[in-house]
């Protein structure tokens, strides 16, 4: 530690830190544009010039290392003169169009110009003009002339997003920020560039010109999408959500959010929103009052319970539902004596049992300090954009990333070792890694692993894990949705134990941990798969669109169609109009109070940001009334906080221990093609599926049947051909595309999209023929 003096204040700071760091510590503000604490130092805006005693000229605080005994003046005559000079230069080419600029009111240049800018410009010549560039559906560059060349957006791409999509072309006064030949910025974190831009050069395309920043009220919330639980600020005008931006939380999302978190709000204002309760009578949908709809539901459930037994009632909820909703749903079900309730909709192997809630196994922030990773079955970047970002930072700091997966998607980070195999080969690969570790640790190989033949990839992965001091073994969404998920989890757990690694499940959705805590799992009842395989007479759907959210859409739709009563609680008028009997309009996350428990087990509650649209109501209130109508005891909650407290009081603990799963390595090599299924980032839940701008991006393209080039050749197919994909009795027509990052013997077909919603389970055999 060294001591430096800033504006007369003594500050102790680390050796190697900069004057800017020390000033931040001392609470002294130094004006700046290009400096950002999460990005590398560029020192190109020169706004942070300060006077350093004994230095002959002003120095940039962001790039000047602090030295012992240094005396810095940030507001001395020399410093202020330098800062004013820089400001005058910056304003020479900056259009003074603040009154019509989208950034007006929240612009760093505007704010600092008030402090350091002149009353009027001495520059009377022509200003430079920069032509707008087309860089995709999310970021607008129409007003590129406002750019002050700080290069924050460029550095963000290189350092945080992991792909350099924007760059600064040309030189000196011709320098311009652009993408390569107007190509779209595809990063799943791209929206952060809008926040980083200190002027109005990069603005949000969906938000532009819908509100001025001072008209917006800012309400805190929590992301309802992936398992991270990013902290959000929901900006509201006239009871309408106008945009969503991050709230800094170093322990969870740092200062970033993914594009899914940022732009999904468009789905809140979708035309498809359900705003009145509806009942189907004589095949016609009627809008009715809440009391009528709820009486109808209560009567229906009572009748089915009396005639067929309560066991014939089943409830399914998405893991994006709040803790309160999930808790009341299961309490209602158990109250009417059915335990058929589940939220693990895309899971297919439930034999792991549920002793506790599977979780990340560590704090989110601990990811950055890991030195070895084994990531099993994860479309990491698309499923967990910000966790991927943290792993990227760890790898940059020297960690090894090892991957076992069914697709070799580019993680935008160096991968030390990888084993890319068909889903049916994943258990075997993990067993190989375990065996290699056992041999390395000179322990005895158990009898059931004698036959496992350790390959090169597995042995390098084992070596990498064994050499680490702070390893992590992480199971991704695909691993948890895999038909042998319990095998994968059990072996991965043993690998973690042997290598002294943290062992974690990457939570698929906002409440993947919360669902367990709410007790929304069947216990002795039927799980999500069994409820469909043994069709029930009544289904309660909470936020669920069965053909898009379930592991096996074909089975789910068959079950819905045969049921006597389907109650769809949803924020949207969706496909349920074809098979449901009642539609209940419930509030999405911005219109209800609630709680998400993120993948590290952090309980994060939020309040509603706006009033529910039309007659929509928070689902916890709907369930409470339903509980009262059905005379279930203990349903007199006044507030969602009371529901939460009761839920958390009875909640299970976080627990990743897996016991009693016998190893079963089957090396049957079937010749049939196997399905690999990803849930693309913008198809993952009901809200994001209705976010317009996101639906126009490359990640939301209509799914293709993707195969390795060799497989295409074998089948005599060309990319672009239309094929009939048959899975059991189900089939759909899709275009074929070539993807050499897939292993042989697989076809990758996305779920969550109408084009593939008629297919069967996410895994298993299928066949292709030219249509």
């Amino acid at each position: 530690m060294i001591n430096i003096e800033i504006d007369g204040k003594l500050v102790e700071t680390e050796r190697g830190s900069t004057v800017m760091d020390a000033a931040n510590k001392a609470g002294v503000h130094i004006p700046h544009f290009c400096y950002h604490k999460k990005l590398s130092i560029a020192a190109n805006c020169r706004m942070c010039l300060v006077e350093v005693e004994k230095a002959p000229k002003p120095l940039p605080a962001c790039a000047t290392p602090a030295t012992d005994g240094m005396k810095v003046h940030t507001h001395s005559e020399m410093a202020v003169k330098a800062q004013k000079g820089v400001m005058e230069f910056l304003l020479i080419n900056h259009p003074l169009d603040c009154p019509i600029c989208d950034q007006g009111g929240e612009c760093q240049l505007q704010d600092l110009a008030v402090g350091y800018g002149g009353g009027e410009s001495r520059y009377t010549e022509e200003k430079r003009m920069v032509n707008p560039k087309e860089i995709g559906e999310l970021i607008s560059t129409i007003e590129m002339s406002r750019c002050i060349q700080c290069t924050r957006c460029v550095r963000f791409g290189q350092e945080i997003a992991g792909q350099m999509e924007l760059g600064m072309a040309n030189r000196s006064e011709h320098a311009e920020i652009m993408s390569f030949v107007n190509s779209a910025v595809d990063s799943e974190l791209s929206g952060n560039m809008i926040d980083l831009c200190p002027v109005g050069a990069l603005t949000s395309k969906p938000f532009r010109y819908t509100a001025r920043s001072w008209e917006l009220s800012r309400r805190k919330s929590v992301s309802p999408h992936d398992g991270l639980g990013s902290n959000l600020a929901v900006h509201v005008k006239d009871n309408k959500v106008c945009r969503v931006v991050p709230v800094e939380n170093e322990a969870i999302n740092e200062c970033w959010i993914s594009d899914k978190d940022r732009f999904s709000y468009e789905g809140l204002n979708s035309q498809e929103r359900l705003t009145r309760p509806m009942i189907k009578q004589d095949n016609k949908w009627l809008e009715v009052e809440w009391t009528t709809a709820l009486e109808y539901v209560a009567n229906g459930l009572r009748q089915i319970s009396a005639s067929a037994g309560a066991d014939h009632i089943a409830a399914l909820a998405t893991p994006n539902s709040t803790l309160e909703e999930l808790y009341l749903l299961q309490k209602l079900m158990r109250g009417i004596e059915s335990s058929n309730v589940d939220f693990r909709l895309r899971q297919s192997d439930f034999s792991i049992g549920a002793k506790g809630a599977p979780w990340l196994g560590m704090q989110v922030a601990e990811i950055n300090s890991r030195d070895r990773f084994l990531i099993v079955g994860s479309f990491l970047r698309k499923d967990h954009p910000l966790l991927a970002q943290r792993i990227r930072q760890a790898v940059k700091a020297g960690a090894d990333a090892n991957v076992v997966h069914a697709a070799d998607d580019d993680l935008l980070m160096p991968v030390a070792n990888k084993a890319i195999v068909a889903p049916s080969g994943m258990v075997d690969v993990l067993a190989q890694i375990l065996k290699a570790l056992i041999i390395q640790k000179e322990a005895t190989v158990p009898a059931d692993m004698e036959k496992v033949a350790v390959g090169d990839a597995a042995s390098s992965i084992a070596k990498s894990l064994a050499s680490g001091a702070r390893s992590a073994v992480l199971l991704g969404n695909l691993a948890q949705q895999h038909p042998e998920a319990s095998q994968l989890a059990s072996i991965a757990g043993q690998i973690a134990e042997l290598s002294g690694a943290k062992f974690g499940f990457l939570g698929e959705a906002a409440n993947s941990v919360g669902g367990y805590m709410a007790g929304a799992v069947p216990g002795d009842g039927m799980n999500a798969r069994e409820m469909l395989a043994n069709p029930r007479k009544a289904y309660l759907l909470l936020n669920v669109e069965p053909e898009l959210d379930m592991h096996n859409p074909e089975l789910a739709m068959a079950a819905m169609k045969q049921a006597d009563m389907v109650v769809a609680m949803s924020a949207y008028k969706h496909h349920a109009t074809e098979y449901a009997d009642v539609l209940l309009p419930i509030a999405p996350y911005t219109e209800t109070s609630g709680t998400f428990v993120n993948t590290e087990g952090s309980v994060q509650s939020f309040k509603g940001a706006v009033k529910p649209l039309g007659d929509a109501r928070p689902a916890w209130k709907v369930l409470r009334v339903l509980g009262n109508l059905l005379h279930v005891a203990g349903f007199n909650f006044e507030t969602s906080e009371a529901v939460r407290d009761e839920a958390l009081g009875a909640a299970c603990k976080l627990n990743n221990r897996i016991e009693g799963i016998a190893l079963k390595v089957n090396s049957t090599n079937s010749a049939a093609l196997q399905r690999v299924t990803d849930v693309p980032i913008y198809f993952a839940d009901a809200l994001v599926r209705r976010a317009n701008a996101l639906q126009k991006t490359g990640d939301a393209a209509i799914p293709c049947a993707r195969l390795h080039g060799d497989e295409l050749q074998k089948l005599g197919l060309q990319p672009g051909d239309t094929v009939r994909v048959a899975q059991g009795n189900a089939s759909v027509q899709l275009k074929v595309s070539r993807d050499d990052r897939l292993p042989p013997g697989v076809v990758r077909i996305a779920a969550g999209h109408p084009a593939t919603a008629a297919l069967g389970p996410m895994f298993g055999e299928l066949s292709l023929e030219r249509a």
Partner: protein
Amino acid sequence: MLSAPIQDQINRELKKYPADQKQSAVMSALRFVQDEKGWISTDDMSDIASYLGMPKIAVMEVATFYHMYNLKPMGKHTITVCTNLSCTLCGAEDTVAYLKARLGIGLGEVTADGKYGLKEGECMGACKDAPLFTINNKKLCGRLTHEKIDQILAELDKS
């Protein structure tokens, strides 16, 4: 696709740098392409990017930074006149005007027969010979006078 000779040249260049820093060869790669084709298209930048395993936009940044790279087809003989301070003080403006008149084209243009191109350049580090220009970035001609320019053009006319 980069042609086989260009790939050979790049591979030779790559031996100078550590295996994980292939992008160090980007300037040479751009030069090889220009030497072969006379200019560098965005497709060429894209090819170089994938060959060197670097972002396309990073190649573009380099290609657009240096004035020696032609980003559109130029003449068989491209004359680049330095117009920085030393040359301007020694009469570069007159050099440009004379060349414009002789060739009948403006800066950044090519003669109709494709033989000559004229460009403005930055300091070439040979101020003692100001005013000066280069021919195809390879040959430096200094202490220019109208007579000397006529002489140089007469020689180029022959080739």
